């Protein structure tokens, strides 16, 4: 297993109150596999992704129990420095909103170069950095990588911004890419392009992919297995095709009914 999350529980703090976000959630993903994580808003999908990268800020919440093993390393026991070496290098992540996930005052090129430099063993020359950044941008199938490289985030479109985010996430050829609702904030026409791009990159680079979404139509096309989350618990999991064709849990059935007619849900 590339990543295995076992019986993870996460609590969030709201003032004095403690709100459970995940309860005994488990997830496994093998090298090169594509796994979907579905559920409604607030079901704990994003929390699971953040927990895998140990990115839950201590002032917001904490992981109360469970074990996370990535490439044989116990994530929850790693020193912060080793954890940083994994983030962005072995595990890349893309967030929902490309409008807010890029720093507004830095050029896109600078941000991609930063992602590369942070994980480089030596100080890279400006020319080398630029070459790698431009390569990452073309890998994300951005037309005119040179222009995007020199642009600030507000100067490019939403789809291009999300591609720039993808370029940052894959710049260090991670083994696992987590895409947290990568298309939710985008136009419908751009959504498919982004999903196709993710599928293509996964194939080309041999990455594993965790696709987080509330849209069953999306996972049906792009994932091998899915996990269904509800109120912080995994209520159902299995091969995408069988879960979607014969859902065992009432919540999954409910989610399936919630898919609009026009979306082609594969029910083989």
């Amino acid at each position, binding site marked *: 297993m590339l990543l295995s999350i076992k019986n993870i529980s996460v609590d969030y703090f709201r003032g004095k109150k403690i709100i459970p976000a995940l309860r005994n959630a488990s997830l496994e993903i093998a090298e090169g596999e594509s796994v979907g994580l579905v559920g409604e808003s607030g079901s704990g999908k994003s929390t699971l992704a953040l927990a895998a*990268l140990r*990115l839950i800020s201590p*002032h917001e919440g904490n992981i109360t129990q469970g074990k996370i093993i990535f490439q044989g390393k116990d994530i929850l026991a790693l020193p912060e420095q080793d954890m*940083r*070496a*994994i*983030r*962005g*290098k072995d595990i*890349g*992540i893309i*967030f929902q*909103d490309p409008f*807010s*996930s*890029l*720093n*507004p*005052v*830095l050029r896109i090129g600078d941000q991609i170069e*930063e*992602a590369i430099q*942070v*994980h480089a063993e030596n100080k890279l020359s400006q020319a080398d950095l630029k070459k790698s950044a431009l390569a990452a941008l073309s890998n994300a199938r951005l037309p005119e990588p040179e222009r995007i490289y020199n642009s*600030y985030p507000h100067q490019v479109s939403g789809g291009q911004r999300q591609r720039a*985010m993808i370029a*940052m*996430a894959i710049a260090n050829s991670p083994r696992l890419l987590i895409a947290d609702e990568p298309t939710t904030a985008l136009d419908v026409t751009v959504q498919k392009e982004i999903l196709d791009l993710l599928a293509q990159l996964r194939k080309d680079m041999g990455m594993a992919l965790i696709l987080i979404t509330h849209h069953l139509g999306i996972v049906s096309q792009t994932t091998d297995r899915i996990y269904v989350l509800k109120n912080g618990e995994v209520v159902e999991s299995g091969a995408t095709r069988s879960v979607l064709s014969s859902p065992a849990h009432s919540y999954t059935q409910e989610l399936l009914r919630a898919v609009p007619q026009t979306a082609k849900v594969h029910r083989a």
Partner: protein
Amino acid sequence: MISIYLHRIFRNKLAFAGALLMVILIILALTAPWLAPSHFADQSLIDRLQPPSGKHWMGTDDLGRDVFSRLLWGTRVSLVVAFVAVGIATLFGTLVGLIAGYFGRWTDAVLMRAVDILLCFPTFFLILMVIAFLEPNIVNVMIVIGVTSWTGLARLVRGETLSLRERDFILAARALGASTPRILFVHLLPNVVAPVVVSATLGVGGAILTESALSFLGLGVQPPDPSWGNMLSAGKDYIYFAWWLSVFPGLAILTTVMAFNLLGEGLRDALDPRS
């Protein structure tokens, strides 16, 4: 992006006037030794207390020194003191604000309570007290003004940081493996530059006033070094029959403080994303 801001500043006539005055003042300060008709300490007892004339544009003081020359040299002192003091305050305030805002919890609590305590002291009397213990000279004045005027900026930067740290791009930067110092100085700092620049520009005006007041009280820049404040102070004894000794340094302070305030407010409008 920068060109948009420049355009906005130039469109605002008052801010442009402020910027122009600031540039002129800096040039005057830099070229004072060549521009001034005489050295600031050159005395000519025959020419004591002469009113403004072709030879002495702003008259002479009680020791026969050329007021215009002293005023030009004084520009240096006033600007250097103000810039260095504001530099110290900006460095301190930004750093404390960033750290308090980003780390939150007890770090924030400790730093902000320290700020609250500092704010309880009337700043000017705090400065007077410190100067009373130290030797009154330019360096001490700069340091004291600097370390007593960073609190407002610290609060401002802390507030900005509190909201910025919840933004996705900070999470994204952490997810890419960026270290804490990197997040603070590469990702957060550029996002708070606008309010910091505005606050620093307005702060220069305040620092010039504080320096003048201290020098006026004899606790700032010491004679014979000319500062607008100690020139005012020396002129006050002759105010009934030698008006030029008070009016010109007073006007210099007025114009300079106004220039920085206008520029600061212009910058605030220009850098405001809502406008």
